[in-house]
Structure formats: C-alpha cells, structure tokens
C-alpha cells in the first residue's frame, strides 16, 4: 500500500515539470486570449473595459473579416489539395520507380522547405514581376505583343492564387519526404504479387500504396491545416502586406492589423478566438471524415 502511494508520488513528481510548463505556456495564454476577447483594450494602458460579446458582434458584421476568412479557407483548401496530390505523385514515383538522379530530385524538392519565407517571397516577387518577371516573360510568348502585363500581385482576383502557387512550391518537398518515408514501409511482396496478378502501376498506387499509408496521410492533413494558417500569414506579410486594398488579407494578418495597427487588441483577440475554434473544429472534422479501419501489413 505504502509503496503504491510512493510510486504515484514519484510519477506525479516526474510529470510535474511538463505539467507546469504546459500550464504556463499553453493553458494560461489560451485562456487569456479568450478572456481578452471580451475586453475593449488598446494593448498598453490599464483601462480595459469589459464589453462582453460585443467584439464578436462587431466581428460578425465586419465585411473585411469575412473577406479575410474566405481567403484563408480558399488557401487551406487549394494548398492542401494541390500539395497533397503533387507530393503523393512525386513520392510514389521517387520511391517506386527507378529513375536516374533520385537523390538529386529528393534534395531539389526539399530545398524550398529549408528556405525562409522571406527568401521565398523575394523569389516569387521576382517571378511575378509584371515587366521582367519569369512568369510574364514566358506567357508573353503566347500573348499578343502589346497585351497589358498580368499583375499577379496587383489583380484582386489573382493575388490569392499567386499566394497558393508560392505556398504549394514551398510545401511539396516536406510532405513528399514524409510520404516517401511511409511508402518505404510498404512490403515489396505486395507489389510483386500485384504484378503477377497483372495490376497496373496506377491500380497498385490506389489499392496498395494509398490504403497502406492512410494513417500517415491523415496526420499530414492536420499539419496542412495548421501550417497553411500559419504560413499564409507570413507569406502575406512578406509578399503583399494584404494589398491591393485588402484583397490578399488572411484572417491572421487581419487579426494582426486590428490588434496592433488599429490599436484594437481586444478585437484582435476575438478574431484569435474564432481562428482557434475554426482550426480546432476543422482538424477534428477532417479527422472524423477520414477515419478508416487501419490496415495491417
């Protein structure tokens, strides 16, 4: 009896450090965000006024917030689908096929991931440059000579897609390496027997590879949601600063703009709460929808 209590005490002492750290660095800040979202406060003075749900009331009538929310959702959906498709295809090719310079490609694809967002933004700003940019130079071959240049970062209907391209380029390598790692774990014998049965490469991909790495794909989906939300803020800050006229604003950049530039810290925190609930809910939903009986091999 005594030794059991001692053991429990020992366990308690062991997990105490991480519990304390978790409370200080995760729980308290999160609770604080929720609390601050109910105050009108500029961020510095001591005069915080409790306004209840007023910040949320304003938020749900704020067109600019809806626009930034739409942009964020568009980015999450497009970046996830496109990146996942490319990463899976490249991973399958690089791990299943024998091609020359496999390692070379693996490195090339991974390089964007070790570059900082600021560097990537500079690269893409150069690519998107209306006059000397790579993209417009290539397109000019197909377009009339005196056609107006395409403003990749200046056209309000194009700017979000320009961000998508940069973000996909940045993310592919990382997810490709992750998928390749789990594809390496799929036993060769399965493919051999599939070959004997006469299954084609594409059939093998959808019926052997994909189901067997499904748990990995599910995990990366959550990563996609979190990283797109975070990275979209960095890309917007570095590349467009929300311009033109707020057309490239995403919810985190809008939150930053409200909390700091517009001196409405409490309102910014209200946006933070919505983003928090949204990303939590979305991750949960995706997890639920993609739930499958795990396959053993």
């Amino acid at each position, binding site marked *: 009896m005594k030794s059991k209590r001692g053991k429990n005490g020992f366990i308690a002492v062991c997990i105490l450090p991480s519990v304390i750290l978790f409370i200080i660095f995760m729980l308290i800040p999160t609770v604080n965000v929720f609390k601050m979202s109910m105050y009108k406060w500029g961020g510095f003075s001591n005069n915080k006024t409790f306004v209840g749900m007023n910040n949320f009331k304003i938020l749900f009538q704020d067109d600019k917030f809806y626009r930034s929310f739409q942009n964020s959702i568009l980015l999450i959906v497009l970046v996830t689908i496109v990146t996942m498709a490319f990463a899976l295809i490249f991973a399958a090719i690089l791990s299943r096929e024998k091609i020359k310079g496999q390692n070379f490609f693996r490195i090339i694809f991974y390089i964007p991931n070790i570059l900082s967002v600021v560097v990537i933004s500079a690269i893409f700003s150069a690519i998107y440059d209306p006059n000397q940019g790579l993209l417009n130079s290539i397109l000019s071959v197909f377009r009339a000579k005196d056609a107006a240049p395409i403003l990749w970062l200046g056209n309000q209907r194009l700017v979000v897609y320009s961000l998508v391209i940069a973000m996909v380029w940045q993310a592919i390598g990382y997810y490709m390496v992750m998928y390749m790692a789990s594809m390496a774990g799929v036993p060769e014998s399965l493919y051999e027997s599939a070959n004997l049965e006469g299954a084609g490469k594409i059939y093998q991909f959808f019926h052997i590879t994909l189901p067997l790495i499904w748990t990995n794909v599910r995990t990366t989906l959550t990563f996609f949601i979190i990283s797109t939300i975070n990275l979209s803020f960095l890309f917007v800050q570095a590349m*467009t600063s929300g*311009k033109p006229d707020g057309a490239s604003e995403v919810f985190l950049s809008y939150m930053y703009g409200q909390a700091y530039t517009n*001196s409405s810290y409490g309102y910014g925190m209200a946006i933070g709460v919505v983003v928090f609930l949204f990303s939590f809910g979305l991750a949960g939903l995706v997890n639920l929808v993609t739930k499958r009986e795990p396959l053993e091999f």
Partner: protein
Amino acid sequence: MKKEKLKRWLAAGLVAAMTMTCLAGCGGGSSTDGDNGDSGEGGADGDGQVLKVAALESAYGADMWTEVAAAFEETHEGVKVEVTTDKKIEDKITPAMKSGDYPDVVHCATGRDAALTETLTKEKGLACLDEVLDMTIPGEDVTVKDKILPGFLDTLGTMPYNDGKTYYAPMFYSPCGLFYNAGLLKEKKWEVPTTWEEMWELGDKAKEEGIALFTYPTTGYFDAFTYALLESSGGADFYNKCMTYEDGIWESDEATAVFELIGKLAEYVEPTTVGNANDEGFTKNQQLILDNKAIFCPNGTWLPGEMADAPRAEGFEWGFTAVPAVAAGEKPSSFTFFEQLWVPAEAKNQELAMEWVAFMYSDKAAEIFANAGAVQPINGISEKLSDENKLYYQIYDNDAAVAVMGGFAATEPVEGVSMADSLFKAVDSIVSGDKTVEEWQTGVEETSDKLRDAM
C-alpha cells in the same frame, strides 16, 4: 530497501531542480536585464540619473542618436543617456513596456505598421509637453516655443486630441510633393505643370511617347498627397473639418472634387504600378521614374537617398514640385511630413525627459541631425542645409506653396474601422477599377461617421 528509497528521493530532487532551473531560465530573462541597466550604470555616475531614450533608426541612420546623447551628457553633468535604436523600435521596446518598464522618451513617427505611437495616443498614454514649450533650450537663451518654426505647433500633428495641448514634439520635417526627372522634361521641352489642366495635357502628350504620367510606391504615400489636395480644394478650415471627421464633410463639393481628381489621375497611372505597390516591390515603382517610364511620383525628401544606388536614365536629374491646386486660383500645396518625439505618461524620469525634448531644438543637436540629413523645424535651419536639400526645402519660399500639416485627429480605437483603409488603401481599387469613385467616397464618409462617434 533504504538504498532504493534514497535513489528515489535523489531522482525526485533532480526533477525538481530541473523544473526550477527551467522556470527560472524562462522567467528571469527580462528582470535581470533591467537590473543590469539600472544598478550598473547608476553606480558608476555621480548622482546616477539615467535617461532611457528609444529612437527609430530610419533612413538617417542610428549614429546621430549616439552623438546627440553624448552632447546631452556634456551639458547635463552626471546624467547618463541610454539610447536604444532599431529599425523596428516598436518590437524592441513594447515587451518591456507591457511589463511596466517604459523608456523615458520615444522617437517614433505615426503612420507605421505597428502603430505604437497611435496606440499610446488612443489609450491616453502620453505625457503633455506644454511645459517643454516654455522651457529655455539648454545652453541657449531662447524658449522652445520661439525656436520652432511657426505653424508646426498648432496642428493635429502635435496636438492629436485637438484640445490645444501638445503631446508630440515635431522632429525632422520634410516636404512631400511630386518627384520627377527634371532631365526628361528638359529634353522633351515639357513644362512642369502648375495646374491639373496642364497636368492632364502633359499626360496625354507623354502617353503618345509611351510614358505614363503618374506612379506611386504604395497607397501609403497617398496620405501626404491627399492631404495636400484637400487643403488646396477647400482651404485650411475645410482641411481641419476633414481631419476631425465633421458630419457630411466627405460628401461636400470640395471633397468630391478631390475624389474625382484622384479618380481621373488613376487613368494616367503606369499600368504595372498596382502589381508592385506593396512593401516588397515599391522600389520598382520608384524605379519607373528613374527609367523614364513614368513622370511623377508622390514622395518625401528621403526618396533620392533611398534610390541613390539605383541605375537611372541618361541625363537624369531629380526634380521636385508641390501638388497643383484643385480649386482654380488657389496656390499649390505640399504636406509637411514630420516625425514625432513623445514622453510616455508612465515614464519614470519625466523631468529629464522634458529636458531632452528641449535639447532636441538646440543648435548643437540640430547640427548633428543635419549632418545625417535630418532637418529640425527650427529657425535658422536653412543655413545648415546641404545644397541638394535646399532644392526641396525651398518649395515654400516666397509663398510659392501652402504648407499643410497634421493628419487625422486621434480617436478611441474603433474595431475594424480605419481611415487608412478606407481613404488610402482603396486607391489601389480605384486604379484597378475594382471600385468606383462613388463607392470609395461613400466608404470614406461611413468611416468618418464611425470615427466621429469615438472622438
């Protein structure tokens, strides 16, 4: 058995020690920093007065601040000045400020992204500087009020609450106007337009030669430009009414004339401008002037320095002119941009901080600033200017142009609403055709209504 118990306690002790050191390491950082600063410096000096100055490192560089600090220490014996400078000074000082450790004086202009100055203004966190104005400048026998150039002290740019009390000390002024390639106009034998009619004529002529009339770095530069237009459209009274959000003022004829003028100007904007009008690409828009692809660009006197190393067309020569008047018979106008120096209400050493503010207008300090290119708004400054700078600062000479000063009045923060968004950022949409001038104008009036309620 006993041994095992000992082992267990030892392990528990180690874990506890780890926790403590970890937490101490995380939490202690800022407090030890502060201690070092105070006790270390204080012990070394006689009466140990330490003045903490935070200053933005702008295009003028950071060295001038250390020089001025040294000059201040010379005139104030026993005082030690600790200068913090950074290109993003807000990021450097706000964490300490939030925990109550404020600098004594802060030099940080309004209109920056982090909006520290605006936030403290809206939160009523500034000390009133009225007593500084009556102070005698250290080492001289003239008061601050008498030394500062006329006009600088009675604007919303120094009295943000529009209540007759000064909260910002005006620093480093710079006329804003239209920059152009004087060499190009000379070569083509084009006159510098003095009215908007002449401007449109020039625009049509230039268009035939494949040169656009206008470009802008980012929409942020439309503040000074729009302020100048508003002043020359309706005069000083009208301008102040706009800046204090008077009901219906943005729908008046004078304001409509300004909106329509910018709407027409949008047709003359260089077609790639919007694509580069962001923080990453704005220099490409400024480059259009150097490459003779566009004629005019609204900017401040820092532009030639900013583009000093950029390649340029042959025969290039900077030209600078005020913004032509909107109303017929009015004089051209130019917005005078200046930066702000302020004392936080929470500053511990306010008395010394006020001394510092007064010292900024001494001949000694002004000379140090002038050597770095920063121009203080004081009497007799024109003798200290370099020849290149004289070109810009002479635009007000002989009453040639009206100087416009001070931006929008400070209000309580209004969630989701800002004049910068409605009035300036929207210009991108006007140029790209995503918004009509009417929609723009309605939006500005709505914003003005919301901000008026929060005055």
